[in-house]
Each structure stands twice: as structure tokens, then as C-alpha cells.
């Protein structure tokens, strides 16, 4: 979906819903299995990064493809297309020692939200 939506697409939008997937040729920074550290960012503008995963360690599970980056698109600072991944976190890493040992949380995160862990 482009930055501004075209009237010609209204029928399809209502029938099938919208998607911010784009066909830009962008290389992924992470592969499935890679360990990542989520950045601790606190922008006063829009972000799709929830507070509860900031600063936490996760593992890339799946690459969903390339999408418009909401954080920049929300302030008309460009679409900055990038990969979005399903990332796995252990419940104990997020919620502490009393969380069930085997529970996992999977959340979709944009490339820019993470750094690699060697």
C-alpha cells in the first residue's frame, strides 16, 4: 500500500482488507535462528514496538517479507521498506521467573527494531 491510498482501490480494500506489504528489493538483516536484542527506543511518535519486548533477547523464527515501516510513514518521513519477522521470546525473559518455563511469545517485529547478538 502506498503512502497515500488511491480511490481506485476502495472496493478491494473493503473486500479483502489492506496490506502494507511492498515489492521493494530490500535485503534482510536477519535469518531464521538468529539471536537478536530488541532496541530500547522510546519515540514520542508512532511505533509498532511494544514496551514489553524492548531490551529483551529473542530468536528470529520466520521472515514475513518486506513492508512499509510505520514509524517513519506515520510522520511522512518515507516508507523505508524493510523486512518484518516473527520473533520468539521466552515467557520468563519477558515476565520473570514465575512465568511458565516452556511458554513462548511470538511477535512480529520490523528489521529496524533489532540488533544482532553475536
Amino acid at each position: 500500500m502506498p503512502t497515500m491510498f488511491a480511490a481506485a482501490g476502495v472496493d478491494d480494500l473493503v473486500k479483502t482488507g489492506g496490506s502494507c506489504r511492498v515489492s521493494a528489493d530490500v535485503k534482510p538483516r536477519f535469518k531464521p535462528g538468529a539471536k537478536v536484542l530488541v532496541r530500547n527506543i522510546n519515540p514520542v511518535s508512532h511505533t509498532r514496538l511494544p514496551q514489553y519486548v524492548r531490551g529483551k533477547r529473542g530468536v528470529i523464527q520466520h521472515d514475513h517479507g518486506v513492508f512499509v515501516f510505520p514509524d517513519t510513514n506515520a510522520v511522512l518521513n518515507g516508507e523505508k521498506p524493510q523486512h518484518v519477522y516473527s520473533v520468539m521470546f521466552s515467557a520468563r525473559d519477558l515476565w520473570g521467573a514465575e512465568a511458565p518455563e516452556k511458554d513462548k511469545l511470538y511477535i512480529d517485529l520490523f528489521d529496524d527494531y533489532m540488533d544482532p547478538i553475536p
Partner: protein
Amino acid sequence: MNGIHDLGGRHGMGPIDIDPGQPIFRADWERRMFGMFILAFAGGHFNIDQFRAAIELMHPAEYLESDYYEHWLHSLEAWCKANGSLTEQEIEDRVQKLAKGDA
């Protein structure tokens, strides 16, 4: 932003309604709100991320006390006022007319 919308991990909010049989629209005004969103979106008043950002700027207490489509209305009004296609006075006038059954 670290706003009231980011509720993941918060306690005391009650159970999440996951009933798959719940209606798409719980009132007729919600159906109209959906249509207004689509038209304003297609009309170029905002992109989807701007639309969500304005919802996050709602007053926290108002955000928690209002319904999903009221959040949409808030954002739609905010962007249409920001780009000059709608004024607070026009909204007020319309509300007054509706209150009198005169719309």
C-alpha cells in the same frame, strides 16, 4: 509513543473478548464510521500509520472509556481538522442539529 494504547502485559484490564460470533458492527453508527474512514483514507486525508498515531494521542482516560470505532472517529476528526477540511465549529453545529432531530 509510550501511550495508554500499549497495554501488553498490563494487569486489571479484564478478560479479552475472543468470541468469534461477535458482530462486526455493534451499532449502525459503527457501520457508518467504517464507511467514513474508507472514504477519508481514499481521499488522501491520512495514511494508515498517521491514522493510528492520532488515536494514540487521545487523552488516556478518554481512550480507555471509549469504543473501538470512537477511536476511529477521534482520528478522522483530528486529521480533517489538521488539514483544514473540517472545523470544530462545523462539528459542533452538526451535533446541535442532530440533538434537535434536525439533521
